[in-house]
């Protein structure tokens, strides 16, 4: 980071099925609480970035930058980012670039997704847009199916059992019980994950993050300081199609982004106290822990076999239990890591967010200096 950039305000809606709220209502709620929590007024915001993946297809609404800007009295310049499920963290990365360049001093970043306006089959088809339309989707593939391929190969190569994999969602649900913003504040046992209906063999319904509505917003500033500052922001990409990958059991974009983020922050993985990682499907959480450098290949599941871990993993409940309004997730993770650091008093936390099957990966490291 070339500048001292701090997180000075944050707010979010609860992630849920918000039948009575539209995309603008969700944004408004998150933005209002972000501004209220910050030391600045709405008029101090000089740029707005909105992250959203499915607006055109699901809500018949493109052009979200201007809509978000119109929520503020002075209509600052605005743009929208999209990188499938990584849209939110890409928005943060873009905001940091604007701040580093000096083009802006206080940037409002919003992630929003309104997914429950259409049927399940329509939302499933829309989400498949995160994969390669010609190489992956043409044979009738679905997005959970892609992770089904990954899970099958991982189980074959490393001997991960169904019972072990079920620990992942059970842990995330347990963590969400105390999170007021989570979509599912209910604990589930691993057996109910194993017994839930098949979605894409070997993945079952409770291995998959849900369809959710929600928005999250934060204000990043190079002008005002706060105890939470950004120590690193790195993006890496990989082929969108799985047919172009040399292997299925690791996501090189995560490895690359993480290694560069540790270097940028000048720290090692052992310095991290809290992680919020992208568990769109249970198998992804296991692989991400390995790619981020916290476990050897094939050993990621050990984090879920132990009761307490250092660092903590998805203490918020992750995507599985908090809900996954696609583009809001990357920003919600930053909010959660900052809260966890402020409660624990620890120094470093990491947010890992990816789009597609690890095709765009963004890693942020936050530093807490009380």
């Amino acid at each position, binding site marked *: 980071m070339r500048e001292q950039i701090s997180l000075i305000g944050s707010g979010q809606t609860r992630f849920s099925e918000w039948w009575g709220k539209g995309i603008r209502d969700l944004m408004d709620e998150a933005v209002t609480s972000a501004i209220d929590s910050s030391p600045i007024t709405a008029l101090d915001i000089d740029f707005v970035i909105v992250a959203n993946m499915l607006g055109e297809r699901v809500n018949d609404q493109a052009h979200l930058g201007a809509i978000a800007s119109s929520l503020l009295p002075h209509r600052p310049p605005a743009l929208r980012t999209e990188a499938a499920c990584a849209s939110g963290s890409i928005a943060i990365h873009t905001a940091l670039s604007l701040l580093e360049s000096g083009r802006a001093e206080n940037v409002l970043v919003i992630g929003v997704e309104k997914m429950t306006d259409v049927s399940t089959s329509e939302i499933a088809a829309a989400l498949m847009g995160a994969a390669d339309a010609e190489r992956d989707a043409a044979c009738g593939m679905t997005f959970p199916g892609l992770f089904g391929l990954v899970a*099958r190969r991982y189980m074959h190569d490393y001997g991960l059992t169904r019972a072990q994999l079920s620990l992942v969602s059970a842990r995330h649900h347990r963590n969400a019980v105390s999170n007021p913003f989570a979509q599912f504040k209910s604990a589930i046992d691993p057996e109910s994950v194993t017994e839930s209906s098949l979605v894409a*063999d070997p993945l079952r319904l409770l291995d998959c993050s849900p369809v959710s509505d929600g928005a999250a917003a934060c204000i990043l500033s190079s002008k005002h300081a706060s105890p939470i500052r950004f120590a690193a922001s790195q993006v890496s990409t990989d082929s969108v199609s799985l047919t172009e990958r040399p292997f299925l059991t690791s996501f090189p974009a995560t490895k690359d982004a993480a290694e560069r983020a540790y270097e940028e922050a000048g720290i090692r993985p052992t310095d991290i106290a809290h992680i919020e990682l992208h568990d769109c499907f249970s198998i992804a959480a296991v692989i991400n822990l390995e790619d981020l450098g916290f476990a050897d290949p094939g050993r990621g599941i050990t984090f879920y076999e132990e009761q307490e871990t250092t660092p903590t993993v998805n203490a918020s409940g992750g995507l599985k239990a908090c809900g996954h309004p696609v583009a809001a997730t990357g920003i919600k993770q930053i909010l959660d890591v900052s809260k966890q650091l402020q409660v624990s008093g620890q120094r470093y936390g990491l947010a890992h967010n990816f789009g597609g099957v690890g095709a765009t990966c963004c890693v942020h490291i936050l530093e807490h200096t009380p």
Partner: protein
Amino acid sequence: MTHTPASIARALRSRSAREQEGEILSFTTVTHPPARFGTAARTIGLIALDDGTKVMGRILGGEPAIGQRVRSRLRLSHTTEQKLKVYDVCYEVLAKKPAPKPFPGYILALTGPSGVGKTTISMLLTTTVGDYAEKVPILTTRELKKGDEQEYRQVTAREFIAQMKRGEIVAATKIPSSSEQRWYGYRATDIEAIWNDGKIPVVVTEMGLLQGLAHHYSRRSILSLGLLPPGKSKRMMLSCLLHRLRSRGRDSEESIVDRLKNAERDLQFFEDRRELFDHVIVNENLDTACSNIANHVMELAKS
């Protein structure tokens, strides 16, 4: 969108490339496939085809398993809203798992449009790294010209086809020209004799021959080098080739026109099937290109 008539037409173009045998890398059964594919659960696999490419496709029948062999079958995939029937390549699980082919050895393949310098470079290689590499003679049905004896073995078309039917020719291609149909191919015995000498066979190929060799000996046994003429655009590359073909003075103007037509197709092949090439080398300077390739030969010889 993957279900519009235009996108289906595009997919059909790549269909023949997917019609190969292969091996299952992973598979899943999607309980609820996208609406246009009907309501039945669909088993889909990631398949490593024998030429080294990977594809995603529906798996038919049997109990699939990772590592199992599959062969391609053309089946009705779905019917579109416009009542168009879409057929797609599916993969049928082979009941018996055939023993994997033993790794035969490396082959160095040079591919490129006519006039790019494949023959010159392959000849130079046999002098610079002659202890390690040897050129494989090309079997052809065309009339030999002066200086061709070293490079080609001429047979009649009848004999060529007979050898092909007996499986003695591992890769063959038919190159059209305005006057006749010409066959070119490589014999297994020629390639294996070079291996037996402890050397690396060097073959000059075009798309048909390269794919044939990759299919017969497996893609990983081939170090595939693409040779391109210098030039930023396809038009500049073609004009460079035209200049070279004219200045070497071996071909009639009519034959040069034929060769240029084929060259245009070859350049397109480079773009479409990039995965078939391990390295692409621009032949701007003969010495540089040649020593670059000689280095690849030495690396192979060491391994």
